[in-house]
C-alpha cells in the first residue's frame, strides 16, 4: 500500500469525504437510501439504542446489586480452575501454564507473527468502550453493592454505591473525551501511526496483573479475619512472575530466531508435540503417585516397573522395526521372524495362564512365517510378507492373557511393522519410524499410568484432575486422537476401494447422526462392558475415547471437503510422475487438502472446546459442573443460591476463550492468504 501521495496528483485527488461525528451519524444511522426512507432508519436506530441501553442497564443493575456475592467466584477460583489439586502442589499447574506460554511466545517469535495496529483505531476502540460504560451507567438503576475497592479508595458500605457510580461516570466520560481527542490527533497526522499488534495483549496482561495486586473484594464471613482481601491472594505472585518470564522469553525467542531460524522451528514443533504428554503425565500427574515404584527402585522389580516396561518395549520395538525396514535381505528377515516368534512364545509362556491352544497357534504361525520367508524368492516380497506376518502375530497376542499394557504395546508394534515396509525404503524413513516409536512407547506407558489399570503399578485414580484443567485436558486429548483418526476416515471415505468406503461412510454417518451426549453415556456407562473382563479404564480415559469417537467423524467430514476440492489433475499428475499411492497422497494431495480446510478444522477445534462442557452432564467435575453444582450447593452459606451469577460468570468465561481463539484463527487465515487462491 502506498501511503504517500505524490504532490502533483494531490490537487486532482477527489474531495475528502466529510468526516466528524455528525456526518458519520447522518450516513450510518439516519440515512435514507435503498434500504428504506429516513424515517424508517431513524426509527430503527432510536428503537435499538433504547433496547440495548435498557438491556445493559438491567444487566448491570442485576450484576452490581447488593445481594450479589461475587466473592463466590473469586473465592472459589482455585476450585473452578483445578478442583481438588493439592494446594502445596499448585506450582505444577503454574509450571504447565509457563511451558505453554513460553511455547506460544517462542512460536510467535519464530514464525514472525506480527502486524501493526493503527493508533487511531486503538483510540477509537477505547473511546467506544468508555462511551458504552458511560451510557450503561446512566441506565443503571437501583442500589448497588460496594463490592470492590482499591487500596486508596475503599467502599465497605453499600450506601457508598451512588458515589462510586458518580466516580465511574465521571471517569468514563473523561476517558471517552481524552480518547476522542487522541484519535482526532492521530487522524490529523500526515502518516498513519502504528504499533505492533502484540502490544494489545501485553497491555491486557499488564492490566490484569495490576488488578491482581490492587483490587480488593469483601471476604465471605468466617473465612479470614479481615473483611476485605485482594481478589487473588495466591495468584498474584505466580501470575506476575509468569508475566515477566513470558515477556523475557519472547525476546530470547527473537534472539534465537535470528541465530538459527530453521533449527528453532524444528525444535519448537517437537516441543509442542512433547509438551502434551510431559505436562499431562509428568508435571501434572497424581501428586500421591510414588516415583520410586515408577522408576523401578521401589518394591516392584525393575523389569515390571513402568520404566522397565518402557525400556523393554522401546528398545525391543525399535530394533524390530529397524530390521524390518532394512533393505531386503533374506537372512536377516528370517532371523528376525524366528527371534520374534521365540520371544512371543516365551512371553505367552511367562505371562499366559490362558489356554494352551494360543501358544500352539502362535508357534505354528511363527513356523509358517519362517517357512514362507525362506520359500519366497523375491527379497522385496519377502520383507513385506514378513512384516505383515509379524504384524498378524503381534495382533494375535492381544488375546493372550497378560497385562493389558503389553497387549496394547503389541498392537502398536503391529501397526508400526505394517507401515515399516512402506516407509522403510530409505534410510531417512526408517530412522523416522524408529524415532516415532520411542514417544509412542512413552505415551502408552504414561497413559496406563494415568488412566489405565493392570500395569505393574497399582492403579491410581484421576480424581486430582478437575476444573478448567480437566476441560483443557479433554479438549486437547480428544483432538489429538480425533485428528489422525479423522484423516484416516476421510481417506477411506474418498478412496476407490468400495468396502473401505462403505465402512468409513457407515461409521461417519452413524456417529454423526447421534448426539454427543449419548456417546458420552456410552463412554462412561457402557464402554467397560466391551473390554476383556478385569480391564477397567478410568472414567476420564473412557470419556476421552467417546469424545474421540464423536469428533473424528466431524473432522473426517471437514477433511473430506478439502480432498474433494482438489483437482483430479493433481492425482493424475502425481501418478504420472511415478509416485506410489502413499507418496502421492502424503506429498501431493494431503498438503493441499489440509490447507484448504484449515478454517473448517479451526471451527471443529472450537466446537470441540465448547463440547467438553457436556461432560458436566455425566458428572465429571469440569469447570461448568463446579460452577453450577459445587459452588451454589456447597454447605458454606456464603455461596448458597449464587447459581445465577455463577452462570453469568461461566458464560463470560467461555465466551472470552472461544472468541479469542476464533479471532486468532481469523487473523492467521488472513495472514497466510487463505481464500485468496
Amino acid at each position, binding site marked *: 500500500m502506498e501511503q504517500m501521495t505524490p504532490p502533483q496528483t494531490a490537487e486532482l485527488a477527489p474531495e475528502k469525504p466529510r468526516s466528524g461525528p455528525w456526518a458519520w451519524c447522518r450516513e450510518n444511522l439516519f440515512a435514507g437510501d435503498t434500504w428504506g426512507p429516513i424515517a424508517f432508519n431513524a426509527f430503527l436506530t432510536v428503537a435499538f439504542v433504547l433496547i440495548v441501553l435498557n438491556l445493559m442497564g438491567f444487566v448491570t443493575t442485576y450484576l452490581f446489586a447488593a445481594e450479589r456475592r461475587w466473592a463466590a467466584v473469586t473465592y472459589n477460583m482455585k476450585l473452578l480452575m483445578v478442583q481438588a489439586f493439592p494446594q502445596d502442589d499448585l506450582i505444577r499447574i503454574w509450571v504447565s501454564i509457563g511451558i505453554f506460554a513460553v511455547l506460544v511466545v517462542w512460536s510467535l517469535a519464530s514464525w514472525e507473527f506480527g502486524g501493526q495496529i493503527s493508533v487511531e483505531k486503538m483510540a477509537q476502540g477505547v473511546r467506544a468502550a468508555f462511551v458504552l460504560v458511560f451510557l450503561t451507567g446512566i441506565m443503571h438503576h437501583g442500589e448497588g453493592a460496594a463490592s470492590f475497592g482499591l487500596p486508596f479508595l475503599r467502599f465497605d458500605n453499600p450506601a457508598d454505591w451512588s458515589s462510586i457510580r458518580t466516580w465511574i461516570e465521571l471517569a468514563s466520560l473523561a476517558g471517552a473525551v481524552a480518547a476522542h481527542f487522541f484519535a482526532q490527533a492521530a487522524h490529523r497526522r500526515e502518516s498513519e501511526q502504528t504499533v505492533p499488534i502484540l502490544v494489545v495483549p501485553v497491555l491486557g496482561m499488564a492490566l490484569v496483573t495490576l488488578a491482581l495486586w490492587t483490587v480488593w473484594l469483601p471476604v465471605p464471613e468466617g473465612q479470614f479475619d479481615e473483611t476485605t482481601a485482594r481478589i487473588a491472594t495466591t495468584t498474584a505472585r505466580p501470575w506476575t512472575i509468569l508475566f515477566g518470564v513470558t515477556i523475557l522469553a519472547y525476546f530470547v525467542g527473537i534472539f534465537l530466531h535470528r541465530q538459527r531460524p530453521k533449527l528453532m522451528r524444528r525444535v519448537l514443533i517437537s516441543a509442542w508435540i512433547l509438551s502434551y504428554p510431559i505436562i499431562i503425565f509428568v508435571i501434572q500427574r497424581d501428586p500421591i503417585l510414588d516415583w520410586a515404584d515408577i522408576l523401578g527402585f521401589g518394591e516392584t522389580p525393575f523389569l515390571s516397573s513402568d520404566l522397565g516396561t518402557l525400556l523393554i518395549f522401546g528398545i525391543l520395538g525399535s530394533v524390530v522395526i529397524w530390521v524390518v525396514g532394512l533393505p531386503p535381505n533374506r537372512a536377516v528377515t528370517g532371523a528376525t521372524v524366528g527371534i520374534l516368534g521365540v520371544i512371543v512364545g516365551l512371553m505367552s509362556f511367562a505371562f499366559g495362564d490362558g489356554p494352551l491352544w494360543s501358544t500352539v497357534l502362535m508357534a505354528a504361525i511363527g513356523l509358517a512365517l519362517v517357512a514362507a520367508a525362506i520359500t519366497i524368492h523375491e527379497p522385496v516380497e519377502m520383507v513385506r510378507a514378513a512384516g505383515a506376518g509379524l504384524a498378524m502375530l503381534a495382533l494375535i497376542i492381544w488375546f493372550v492373557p497378560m497385562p493389558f499394557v503389553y497387549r496394547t504395546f503389541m498392537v502398536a508394534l503391529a501397526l508400526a511393522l505394517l507401515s515399516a515396509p512402506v516407509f522403510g525404503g530409505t534410510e531417512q524413513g526408517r530412522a523416522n519410524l524408529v524415532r516415532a516409536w520411542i514417544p509412542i512407547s512413552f505415551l502408552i506407558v504414561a497413559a496406563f499410568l494415568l488412566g489405565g489399570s493392570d500395569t505393574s503399578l497399582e492403579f491410581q485414580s484421576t480424581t486430582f484432575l478437575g476444573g478448567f484443567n480437566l476441560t483443557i485436558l479433554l479438549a486437547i486429548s480428544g483432538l489429538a486422537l480425533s485428528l489422525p483418526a479423522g484423516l484416516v476416515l476421510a481417506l477411506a471415505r474418498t478412496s476407490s*476401494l468400495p*468396502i*473401505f468406503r462403505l465402512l468409513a461412510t457407515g461409521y461417519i454417518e452413524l456417529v454423526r447422526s*447421534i448426539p454427543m451426549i449419548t456417546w458420552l453415556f456410552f463412554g462412561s456407562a457402557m464402554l467397560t*462392558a466391551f473390554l476383556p473382563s478385569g480391564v477397567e479404564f478410568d472414567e476420564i480415559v473412557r470419556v476421552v475415547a467417546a469424545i474421540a469417537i464423536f469428533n473424528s467423524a466431524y473432522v473426517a467430514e471437514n477433511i473430506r471437503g478439502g480432498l474433494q476440492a482438489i483437482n483430479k489433475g493433481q492425482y493424475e499428475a502425481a501418478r504420472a510422475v511415478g509416485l506410489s499411492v502413499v507418496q502421492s497422497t502424503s506429498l501431493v494431495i494431503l498438503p493441499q487438502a489440509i490447507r484448504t480446510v484449515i478454517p473448517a478444522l479451526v471451527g471443529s477445534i472450537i466446537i470441540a472446546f465448547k463440547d467438553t*462442557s457436556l461432560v458436566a452432564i455425566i458428572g465429571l467435575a469440569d469447570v461448568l459442573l463446579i460452577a453450577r453444582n459445587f459452588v451454589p450447593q456447597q454447605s458454606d452459606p456464603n455461596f448458597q443460591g449464587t447459581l445465577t451469577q455463577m452462570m453469568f460468570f*461461566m458464560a463470560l468465561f467461555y465466551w472470552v476463550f*472461544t472468541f479469542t481463539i476464533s479471532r486468532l484463527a481469523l487473523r492467521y487465515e488472513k495472514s497466510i492468504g487463505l481464500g485468496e487462491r
Partner: protein
Amino acid sequence: MSKPTEGPVPTRPPLWRNIVVIKWVAQLGSLIALVWLAYVLITQATANLRATGIPFSWDFLGEPLGVKLSEGFNTDPESGLEALSVGMVNMIRITWSGVVAATVLGTIIGIARLSSNWIVSRIANSYIEFFRNIPLLVQILFWQALIIGVLPDLTPDMEGSRWLFASPKGIAIPWLIPQAGRWQYMVLLAVGVVVARWTYKKRIEILEREGRETHAFGWATGVFLVFLIGGWFAHPIAGVLGWLFQALAWVAGNLPVISFQWLMGGLSLALAAWFIVRYMRKLRSPAGMAKLTDDDYFRLGVAGFLGIVLFFFFVSGAGEATIIRVMGRSLTYKMNWGFEPLFNFLATKYDFSGGSPLRFSLPEVEVPTNFPRYASDAGNSMTPGFVATWLGVTLYAAAFIGEIVRAGIMAVHRGQSEAASALGLHRAQSLRLVVLPQAFRVVLPPLGSQYLNLAKNTSLGIAVAYADVVQVGQTIFNQEGQTLPVFIFWMAFYSSVSLFLSGIVNYYNRRMELVER
C-alpha cells in the same frame, strides 16, 4: 523404486502382484477382521453383562417402569416403550418449534447484518458473536438459572387466568387446545392445502399463457381460507374415514401372518431389483453398455445377495422369530407389524360427532393446597426445562442460521439486486422476489445441517430435566441397568430423525437444482 526386470516380461502378473487381487484380498480381509472383532466384542459384552447379573434384554420395553415423567402426553407411562415414546414426542415437539423459531430469527438476523444502518448491523453482529461463542449447555443452564433465580414466585393471590404467567414453575401462555374434533379437522386442512396448491399452479399457468395478473397467491390463500373456516363447521364429514380404517383394521387382523411375511420378502426383492435396474440404467449411455468394473460387480452382487437373503429371512419366518427373540415375548402382541392396532386406533378417532376442533384458552393458576400451580388444562404451561432448552437451542441455532443467511445473500451477485431496483422494485420487493429465492439455493445445504444440529442439541435438555428421549432413556437405565439396549434405541431413533431431516433437505435441494438447469 522398482528395478528393471530382466528376461521376458510375463503377460500377466503373478497372483500376489495382481492389483485387483491385492485390492480385494486386503478389503475382504479387513472386513472379515472387523466382523470378527465385532463378534469378539459382542461375546465379551454378553459375558460381562451376564457376570454382572443384568443380561442384555429388551424386556423393560414391555414392563411397568415405576417412574413418573416431568412432562409429555402421558406423565405416568405404563411401560418402558410408552415412556420412551413420550420422550420421543417431547423431542420432536421441541425440535419442531425450535426449527421454526430459529429459522425466522436467523433470517432476520442475517438480513440485519447486511443493513446499512450501523446500529442494526452492529447489534446483529454482536448477537452472532455472543451466542455462537458460548457453549450451548452453558446457555441452557443460564436460562434455567434465570428462570429459577430471577422470575418472581407464584403467590396464592394470583389465582385466576391471565394472558401470561412467568415464574420459577415455568412460563404459561395462551394456547389453542385441540379437542376431539381435531382429527377430522386435520384431514380437511390437508385437503385444503392440496387444493390450494393445485389452484396456485392453475393460476400461474393462466398467467404464463395469457400474460395477465392472476393473483395466484391471493387465490390460493382464499381457497385455503375456505377450507380453514368451512372445515371448522363441516369437519364431521371426515368421519367417513372411520369406516375405511375399520375395514383396514379388519383386513390387517384377519390376514394370516404368512401374507405379511411374503409382503416384506417381496418388498426386499423388489428393492434389490430396483437398485440393480437403476444402476444398470446409469451405466448405459447412447454409445452402449459401459464395461463393468470389479466395483460394479461388487455392488450389483451385494444388492442381489442382500435382497435374496432378506427374502428368505422374512419368508422362512426367521424374521419374526428374530424380532420375538430380540424384543422379548412381552412385545409379541404387536405382531402383524402393528397394522391392526394402528388402524383400530385411527378408527376410534374418526366418527361423525361434531364439536369444535380447537379451543382457545388462557393460562390459569390454581391453588389446590396452599401451593399455587398452573392448571394443566388451561393455556400452555411450559416447564422451566422446556423453556430453557427451547430458548437455548433456538437462540444458538439462530446465530448460525444468521451467518448462513448472510453468506447466502452475499452469494447472490450484486447485479441481481441492482437489476431489480432498475426494474423499479422496492428494496423489500427485490429482497423477497429476487435475492432471497436465489440465496435459498446456496443456503439450503448448510441450513439442513443446522436443523440436524438443532435436533441433536435438544438432547442437552437432560441437564435441565427436560423429559426428552435421552433423559427418559437415562432414567430407564438407571432404573433397570439396561444400558446397551437403551443406547441402541437412541441410535435407532436419532438415525431415523437424521435420515428424515436430510431426506427432506435433499428433496428440496434436488428441486432447486432442477430449477437452475
